[in-house]
């Protein structure tokens, strides 16, 4: 089963163009949707999760038309929204059990087993009698994935799950995701490149509602191989380089500004070649090409 998104567009009543002609083919396995804040990731995710209507376009999940057969989608869907709250005075076990009922797991025994398994899996078992109000951000997020995994979903959508987690929590969370069976479509949206790097077999970069790149991470890396150059600069030089070079990222390394530049050739000797990582791909898609056009 594949998820086939075609020509999806959405403009909000306030004029914000969230999606523009998005066409994506998402196979089984982990799919990373990379994009900065406000790129339209969440709109896309919500649309796939039957919670939002596009202005036009279509989404097919196998034979299911996502836009009209919402209930069929929901039966096989696990969804973790970008931001969510919980009832503060309800325990994790109670709420998970309650959500399991809504998932259609009506057999009491089965429900109990799956709830316990998921609580173990998400490492919340010891906290199952605790009110959700006392959960930390990471625990809450793990609870979120637990509910998304109820009833063996075939399509899992996790929207920015790692935002705001500390490194340890984030690791724990990603491990959890990676455990999910391979016969499932998992769409992970994030603005953190490492999430995709570590997990995904396929990826897309989207910005301002448009898909900039799709493919496997390897293919993506291949496309910019040998085109990324690095140089340490001083503060004063920064503006100058900005004007003359196609800078895709500026960062600091041990306190000193470092720039990465996209160029088919070594700009000059002061630049050294780097082996591009996914981040470079991402920044190239976001900034490099635009600048190139401008140049």
């Amino acid at each position, binding site marked *: 089963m594949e998820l086939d998104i075609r020509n999806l567009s959405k403009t909000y*009543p306030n004029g914000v163009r969230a999606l523009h002609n998005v066409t994506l083919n998402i196979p089984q396995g982990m799919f990373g949707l990379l994009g900065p804040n406000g790129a339209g990731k969440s709109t896309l995710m919500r649309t796939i999760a039957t919670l939002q209507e596009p202005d036009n376009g279509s989404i097919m999940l196998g034979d299911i038309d996502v836009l009209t057969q919402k209930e069929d989608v*929901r039966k096989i869907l696990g969804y973790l929204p970008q931001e*969510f709250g919980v009832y503060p005075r309800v325990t994790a076990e109670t709420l998970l059990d309650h959500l399991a009922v*809504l998932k259609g797991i009506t057999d009491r025994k*089965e429900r109990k087993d799956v709830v316990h398994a998921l609580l*173990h899996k998400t490492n919340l078992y010891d906290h199952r009698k605790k009110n959700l109000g006392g*959960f930390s951000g990471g625990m809450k997020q793990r609870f979120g994935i637990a509910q998304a995994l109820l009833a063996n979903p075939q399509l899992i959508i996790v929207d920015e799950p790692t935002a705001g987690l500390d490194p340890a929590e984030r690791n724990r969370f990603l491990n959890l995701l990676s455990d999910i069976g391979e016969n499932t479509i998992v769409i992970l949206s994030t603005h953190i490149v490492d999430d995709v790097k570590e997990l995904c077999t396929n990826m897309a970069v989207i910005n301002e509602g448009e898909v900039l790149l799709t493919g496997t991470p390897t293919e993506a890396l291949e496309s910019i191989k040998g085109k990324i150059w690095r140089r340490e600069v001083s503060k004063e030089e920064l503006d100058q380089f900005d004007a003359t070079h196609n800078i895709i990222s500026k960062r600091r390394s041990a306190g000193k500004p470092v720039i990465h530049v996209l160029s088919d050739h070594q700009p000059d000797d002061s630049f050294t070649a780097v082996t591009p990582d996914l981040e470079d791909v991402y920044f190239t898609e976001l900034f490099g090409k635009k600048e190139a056009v401008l140049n």
Partner: protein
Amino acid sequence: MWEIFKFELIYRLKRPATFIYFAILFLMAFCAITTDVIRVGGGAGQVKENAPTTIAFFLIILSVIPGLILASSIMGQPIIRDFKNNTASMMFTSPITKTQYLGGRFLGSFVMLVFIFSGIILGMALGYLMPWIDQEKLLPYNFWHMLKPFLIFVLPNAFIMGAIFFASGTLSRNIMVVYVQGILLFIIYAVTTELMEGWENQALGAILDPFGINTNNHITRYWTVAEQNSQTIGFTGIIVWNRLLWIGVSILSLFLTFWRFDFNLAGNSSKKQRNKTSASKGTQSIKTSVEIPSVHQHSGLATSLSQIMGLSLFYFKWMAKQYTFLAIVIGGIIFTAVGFFFGLGGMYDVDVYPTTYRILNLLGDFNIFFFIIAVLYSGELIWKERDVRINLIYDAMPYPNYVALVGKFLSLVYMFVTLLVILALVGIAAQTIMGYPHYELGVYFRSLFIDDLSNWVLFAFLGFFIHTLVNHKFIGHSLMIVFFVLTLVISQLGFEHQMFLFASGSLGDYSDMNGFGHYFQPFSWFNSYWFGMALVLFTIVLLLTVRGAENAFKMRLKLGKLRINPSLIALGVSSLFLLVSSGSYIYYNTNVINEYQNSDAQLSDQAEYEKTLKKYEKEPLLKIVDTYVDVDIFPETRDFEARGKYVLKNKTEAAIQKVYVQLNPSNEMEDEVSFDVSATISESWDKFDFYIYELENAVAPGDSITMHFTSNFQTKGFVESGSNTEILHNGTFFNSTYFPTFGYQSGNEVGSDDDRKDNDLPEKERMRPRNDPDAIKYNLVGRTSDRTRFEIIISTTPAQIAIAPGYLQKEWEENGRRYFHYKMDVPILNFYSIVSAEYEVLRDKWSNGKQDVILEIYYHKGHEFNLDRMVSSMKKSLDYFTKNFSPYQYRQLRIMEFPRYRSFAQSFSNTVPFSEEIGFMLQIDEDDVDIPFYVTAHEIAHQWWAHQVTEARVQGNAMSSETMSQYAALMVMKQEFPPEIIQKFLKLELDRYLRGRANESKKEQPLDHVESQGYIHYRKGSLIMFALQDYISEDSVNVALRNIIDKWAYREDRYITSDIYLEEFRKVTPDSLQYIISDLFETITLFENRTKEATYRQQGNEYLVEIDISAIKYRADSLGNEIKIPINDWIDIGVYGEDDDGQEKLIYLKKYKINQEEMQFEISVPEKPVKAGIDPINKLIDRNPDDNRKTLTLKKES
């Protein structure tokens, strides 16, 4: 602090809400003044629309009703806002002190609140200037009349509400707590209102009312029309205490806020807990390798049902655990329970037995809380997931839309059921505690779980609909309230039909005798109509409910279209069918087979009757001299069929050619009329059931003709409202007005001058003048007859006994029906009752050696409580009346109970129907006025004062029948009960008289010109007659009354008027006291008697009491304008001691001539005195009866 203050002001001024709130109050005030659509009381009759008291009441109400809600949202918010927007931490780290922060926020918000509240006075000030207001109803414009109550009531109210809401909002940081606080304030107000209903704790209630509503009402309770039009309420007396108390409470709560508010921690109370959670992380048992078992996922109806169950229980538990919810519920239950202490008081402060229906009535106090819960929680439930932002998780779950909505809805229904069960238990507990363990579970069930439950379920549907549709919580709540205001407004605009009034089905009053009677059928139809409507709304809810992230209405419509499926169509169509079919059936019943008119149309018909037919008012009439009726009552179907015969005699000097027949106009009646002589209808008005028959041969003076009639009453389906409560399944009681009568009926005329004006009719006097030569020829029953011979045969269902005036000739059963034949041996007034019910009978006898009278009480089984008191009253009354007035004209005296839909007793010849409500179910304690005894005595007295001495229907008529019956009953009571009881009775009569005159709509008359004004002919009548017999002696009064009977009993040539009484009273009054006749009967005379100083000292074995009194005598005109007149009156001076039990007892009472405003008296008494005063027993009419007596202090020898 200035900075914070300024910030708050600027912030508020930028918010549209501030101006919307201002506009709401401004418009409400403006519209209430300038239109009839919103009414806030006041301005009735002679009280002007801008009378100071009307203005004050109005300002206070508006400061509370919308004011409370606005104040809670303005004053509860400021600190919560900082926490919500996370600006709190910024605030707290900036270099301001706690006092500056809180002070600035409070003052800023408070100034805004005052600004918003000023909308009330500005709207009003502008409103009164509008040119389209009827200038006749206005006093000259006076802004001070508005400003003064604004300063005394509204501004302090703003501060009180503001401070308390600020405190609760700041300390709890939860807006729900603020709302609950508002509800609690309202409960306190409601409890004080209950205190006001009794008469002992009124001052307490007036002081404790947080808003000053009851304080204001208490102060103005005796203000006459003239005073209401001229006086303003000053900041004195009880008001000062009330305002100080609550301002004190507010300041205290502000102090508490400043003290308790934790400025540093910024309220992260969960922080510690959180740290603990993360700290314990290290010790977790890691078992992440566990396999997730595969599960079976179900869908379909069975799954949906179990999901609905799960959801509804989940939400139910959530609600039940909420502190705010619990606070509302517990507050409501406490409030309701408090009601039990005050609410059982009936007439004259006597408690009613806590029967189930009475308890249910009191449990109705909880309704406001049901309403709050329905409004608040339908919104909370709709918004629940979105409020905690878990909605997207829910929305992506594979359940159909209806599952969540039905689940939420059911949880509210469970909550209603739970609360109703609790209420039933409270009721049963109350009945147990009060020692009345007759739990009628069926009545509880029907009333709570059928009537109330369906009502609140309908409101929940409405709440779901509004909240779903507007998709904004606060607007949703507001719209719910607007909806109710709108309901009131549309009925003002003439849409009065119950089909316009949401959830209008009601089981009506319950009566032990008649159960739920015939109310169940219309209730069921109206309920199915509204449930049809509710389900239509719910179908729309299902279509438009927000699922997912789309909030735009256009998108929701688009999604809604996608959701249409066969079962939704089925639901929509079937509920529409239910709505339309039950609506049509209701319409068919109320408007097709019965008649429906709104009140304007009714008034206009009444006016047309007067305009068309008044010209016949004085046409000479044949009079009924003989009546025979044969009535078959069918209680099962609430019908009767009557066949009757009148002998009509020409008692005038001239021949009479025309007969003016007036048939009973009710829609259920079908009549036919025929004469034994040749007659044709010459003119007819079907609309008014008025027909003029022209006789072929005129009836010569002294001659008679016979008229036959059939009058059939047929109950058809059900009516819109005001269904007939006279012809019933059990407890039928109707009177002769159902049968044909003659001539124009002036009783049908439009009464109120305002309504007359609207219908282009001139103002009219309420009654004809006392010396009207035409009117005095006719008795109070009408122009149709003087007295008539009377015979009747009634048949009814075998289980019931049927009774009418007369003596039972024969009783038999035939064709499965039970027959009673009654015949009267002397002519009676043409006014007779027909009663039929399942009765128990108590029989007794009375004799005074000359006369034997059979006594009977027909009562409902289980209502035995007060039968002894009634029998005793029957006997004592017959004793007193036969001894002091004249013999009893009949050989039998019967009391028959009838259902409580109407609460009076009425005296027909030898027959007294007596409501279930006013005597049978009262719980008389030792210190209570024995109401069953009193009412019985009063009604028996009517056998003399109405049936022997019959008055003309002119001004002052009720002084003859009602006042004399009050006197007669009082004299019987005086012999039977201790003086304290009589004094209590008189004190309550005084209170009711003084309140009555404050509510007079036209003009207060002196007693001898009373115009059907109950507060005068009953209440003032008791006081006046008690004073009269006190001044001139009981014997003298009775001599006068005997003289009247001698001259006036059974006269038919003319009927008695009040001047005859005055003439006879004057004859038995000594010269020195002649002035009192005029003071008591012919004028409105009031006293302001007061004891200023009272001391005593011992002198040997005696005690010397010295008192300083002041006494002022006033004369009032019909509007209550008082002028002081010189005093030269005999007034009691009394001294009280104490008996062995420490109870007060009168040890000295003597009349002194009071001829100066200030006087001193020295009285020596043999016992140790405790209190002393002028007119200590309150025999005179005095607006401050409580300052007449004073506790004595020991005088120091100087």
